[in-house]
């Protein structure tokens, strides 16, 4: 019997998943609080004891790999030139690498912005700008101004390749830690994620987890290889595409509503479905992730209310639901677990707003143009109308009695006709919260990971 242990050091919980490779099945899962503030080993050991109890004996694992979003996850600053172009490309690379993009800057940086990057505990800076052979002044200026602040934050340079030499000279001059990779936008509106994402992953693995006190655990496990959202992205991509003879599910959307953020993933090309539609804007990634930092069930509950208009809040009041005081209750008591049906129904209301807005910000949009030659349509972003499945994950969805109530808010509706939302998608549930673990497993055993996901992701 060959066993793998997959560990997810989350911001709140350390989650363990033990997998039997031959049976292609999960034998046990357990969790305990993450103890990164004191010693990360404590929480891990506690979770491990729970796991042994569930299995019935102490077992040995042939491989133990982990992903992490503990100690605030991976915080990045994205810098580009034009907002709709290299800034957007840089942002997408950060999100695809599993980071939270805390700061976004365009054009020439000013000293205040550069200082913010230095002071706001950013883990990695992604510096982009200019297509290959294109603008060089801006990135050179920005590299210089970053250097002048004396920042010790590692910088990943993914801008115009034609000035890599000058950029390196600037970084050397200021003794900065830097990494050079391919341009995130080598040609206009062409997105190139892979090179920068791989470099970010390496920097995360080698430096960031060390700085956050997570690397210590590597004396007991094999390695921490990915930021958690990156692992989830890997799992969802595998589940969509399939592997060898094992078929995937096709086009999928995944929503993870957490306490602080709402993550939406879509795995499909998202190209126009009709001949009379013209695609505009920057190329979209096949596996796309967006994160809404203002939409969450607990820490960000106030953000959910702030996203509502006064009329909408009054509409909830009319139905006997005071969203403002409920949001306050949730932000002050972030460990709150619904005790009765009423609490759960209120959580559903919050979850619905998160899923509706999360989808609205993720999905592509249509725009009509009336021309002398007739009506033409633009498409900005991804067309998700043909998505086969919407998969729910995250505490509020998993533990709720009617998760479909939350998920159905992501579908096309008469209020958002210009949004290219899924039309007839079926709903699935990641009841055991296994995506991050399966993302890790997929790096070594994709077939097993796929089989397990297909078994555990259930119909609702």
């Amino acid at each position: 019997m060959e066993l793998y242990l997959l560990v997810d050091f989350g911001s709140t919980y350390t989650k363990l998943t033990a997998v039997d490779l031959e049976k292609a099945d999960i034998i046990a899962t357990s969790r305990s609080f993450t103890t990164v503030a004191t010693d990360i080993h404590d929480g891990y050991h506690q979770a491990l004891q729970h796991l042994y109890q569930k299995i019935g004996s102490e077992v040995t694992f042939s491989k133990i790999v982990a992903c992490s979003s503990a100690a605030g996850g991976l915080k990045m600053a994205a810098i580009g030139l034009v907002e709709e172009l290299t800034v957007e490309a840089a942002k997408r690379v950060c999100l695809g690498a599993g980071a939270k993009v805390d700061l976004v800057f365009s054009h020439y940086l000013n000293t205040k912005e550069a200082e913010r990057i230095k002071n706001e505990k950013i883990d990695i800076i992604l510096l982009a700008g200019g297509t290959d052979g294109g603008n060089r002044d801006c990135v050179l200026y920005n590299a210089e101004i970053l250097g002048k602040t004396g920042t010790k934050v590692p910088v990943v340079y993914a801008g115009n390749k034609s000035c890599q030499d000058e950029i390196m000279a600037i970084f050397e001059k200021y003794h900065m830690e830097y990494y050079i990779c391919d341009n995130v936008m080598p040609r206009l509106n062409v997105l190139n994620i892979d090179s920068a994402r791989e470099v970010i992953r390496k920097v995360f693995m080698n430096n960031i987890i060390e700085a956050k006190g997570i690397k210590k655990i590597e004396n007991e496990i094999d390695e921490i290889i990915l930021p958690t959202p990156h692992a989830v992205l890997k799992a969802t991509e595998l589940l969509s595409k399939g592997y060898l003879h094992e078929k995937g599910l096709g086009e999928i959307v995944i929503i993870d509503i957490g306490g602080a953020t709402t993550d939406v993933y879509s795995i499909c090309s998202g190209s126009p479905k009709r001949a009379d539609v013209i695609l505009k804007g920057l190329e979209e990634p096949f596996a796309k992730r967006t994160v809404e930092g203002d939409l969450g069930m607990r820490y960000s509950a106030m953000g959910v209310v702030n996203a509502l208009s006064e009329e909408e809040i009054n509409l909830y009041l009319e139905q006997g639901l005071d969203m403002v005081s409920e949001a306050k209750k949730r932000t002050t008591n972030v460990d709150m677990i619904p005790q009765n049906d009423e609490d759960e129904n209120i959580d559903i209301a919050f979850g619905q707003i998160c899923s509706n807005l999360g989808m609205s910000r993720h999905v592509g949009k249509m725009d009509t143009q009336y021309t002398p030659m007739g009506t033409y349509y633009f498409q900005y972003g991804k067309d998700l109308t043909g998505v086969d499945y919407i998969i729910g994950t995250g505490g509020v969805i998993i533990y709720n009695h009617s998760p479909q109530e939350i998920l159905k808010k992501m579908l096309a509706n008469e209020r958002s006709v210009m949004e290219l939302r899924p039309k007839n998608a079926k709903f699935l549930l990641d009841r055991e919260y296994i995506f991050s673990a399966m993302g890790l497993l997929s790096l070594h055993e994709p077939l097993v990971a796929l089989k397990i996901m297909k078994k555990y992701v259930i119909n609702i």
Partner: protein
Amino acid sequence: MVYNILVNNIKEKVRMKTIVIGVIGADVHAVGNKIIEYVLKNEGYNVVNVGVLSSQEDFINAAIETNAQAILVSSLYGHGEIDCRGMREKCIESGIGDILLYVGGNIVVGKQDFEGVKHRFEEMGFNRIYAPGTPIEAVLPTIKADLGE
């Protein structure tokens, strides 16, 4: 040091000149656009084509990122005058105020005296204005001269 200067000089010489082209406004005439792309590419230019149905911002953003020396605006459907208005000001605002602006096609409504049209577009800040039916080949010598070749 000397080596660096040499390398930079060579780099400067071999660097291709970049030209942004496209069809402005709600205009979907794609054929001429493709011909212009083909001819300019054959002449050795780095052509960045923003395509049909392009806004002023699409042209300008592309020119900034690619460090273009010129923008060639096409308009075939008669609304070019409205579509081009304010473009120079936006270029100035975006930090590429010195960029060369070319415009050509059926850029105004109906058949008008071309001298008057040319004057109006010059007032708007366009450097080169071409009458209906001007083939791109006829414009090439001017492009080369303007780009210092």
